[in-house]
């Protein structure tokens, strides 16, 4: 039997269209990317019909997690041109007798996620290298009336950046008492206008239904 000659060429698929498509998608994603922040606690926001987008700067976001911890974030992550994060930390340090050095202030400026650390543990928190080590200190900002550090954070934030807007990002399962407490603290410091961060949900109202 004569051998059947197999073609020695390996089968070539023309990948050009695929590569074209990939490039387009990649370019699109790279240009539109706004990085998702890593969050110390998972927060599932409730939905609303509001269509106003969140402001990008001049914000302080209070994050209320399901397990009643309170986190604070400025300007959605790492510092913007205003550079007010280190100033706030320095003021806080002065208030509580903790001195932060240049390196620590810079690290706080760069820290991209919300933080929920008692101020006395802040030094150790900033020194910690990995996320895992850091998460040990994230017990939430104390809000008791005896040690109300959240109030001080709010006070100094508003002193250093008077244009700051308060945003509240809560998990839909966060209990109401903690929400009330935080709103109370904000109102004590004359913040009466809040932005509640929600997800968009489409709702239709039928006028015909009302008439019935």
């Amino acid at each position, binding site marked *: 039997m004569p051998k059947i000659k197999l073609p020695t060429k390996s089968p*070539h698929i023309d*990948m*050009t269209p*695929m*590569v074209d498509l*990939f*490039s387009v*998608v*990649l370019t699109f*994603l*790279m240009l*539109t*990317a*706004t*990085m*998702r*922040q890593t969050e110390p606690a998972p927060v599932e*926001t*409730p*939905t*609303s*019909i*509001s*269509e*106003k*987008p*969140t*402001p990008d700067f001049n914000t302080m976001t209070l994050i*209320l997690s399901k397990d009643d911890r309170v986190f604070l974030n400025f300007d959605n992550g790492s510092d913007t041109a205003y550079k007010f994060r280190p100033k706030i930390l320095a003021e806080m340090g002065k208030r509580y007798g903790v001195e932060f050095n240049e390196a620590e202030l810079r690290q706080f400026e760069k820290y991209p996620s919300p933080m929920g650390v008692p101020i006395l543990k802040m030094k150790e928190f900033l020194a910690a290298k990995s996320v895992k080590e850091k998460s040990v200190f994230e017990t939430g900002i104390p809000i008791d009336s005896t040690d109300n550090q959240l109030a001080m954070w709010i006070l100094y934030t508003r002193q250093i950046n008077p244009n700051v807007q308060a*945003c509240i*990002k*809560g*998990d*839909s*399962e*966060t*209990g*109401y*008492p903690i*929400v*009330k407490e935080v*709103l109370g603290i904000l*109102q004590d410091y*004359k913040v*009466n*206008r*809040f*932005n*509640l*961060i*929600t*997800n*968009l949900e489409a*709702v239709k*109202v039928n*006028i015909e*239904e*009302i*008439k019935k």
Partner: protein
Amino acid sequence: MAEIIQEEKGEGKKKAKKHAPHIDMTPMVDLMCLLITFFMLTTAFNKPKIMEIILPEPQKENAPAPRISASRTLNIVLGPDNKIFTYPGTVKPEDYNNLPPLTETDYSATGIRQVLLERNVTLAKKIKDFENEVLTGKLVLTPDSVRGSIAKLKKVDDTGPIVLIKAYKKSNYGNVVDILDEMNICGIAIYMLVDITWYEEKMVETASGIAPSATALN
């Protein structure tokens, strides 16, 4: 010698014409796949939205409480386990032993929304008509003046309910946002988030069948 070189050149050219130059694109595709996956996972696509809420300045002590008409008042009490209760009017001190019953409803479109819309028909219709005029192009306005006009409609309205939202301690943040959202959907002109009173706590506890808490006793 020169001839041989020419011949070789000729052969080379012929080969190049036969096969289109194939670049192995597999590594490139691999890399791109990887990058696309990375970007897709790290991109926050839909930006979160915000709902603005302005709370009134806390009352000074000794200041008289603002008086509102009882017939227009609708109390909404957010209960535990995503329950929601309503009752109209107020509870007078002489009725503390004989508390009015609560009506239970839910957060769906047929629940609380229906209750609110029924009481707010005139205003909701006015707002809807106005929005329709804008949508159909009868009125051409900037978004700001549309918002302003709706605010004005709400301001002059004196038929809609005055909604008092009271959250029981076992309700959650999602409930509060839901009900505030419902206010926006139904176009309620006057609503406020107020502290729950002890008798309302008692009413919720009897309505949802949980043991009364210590605060309800005093």
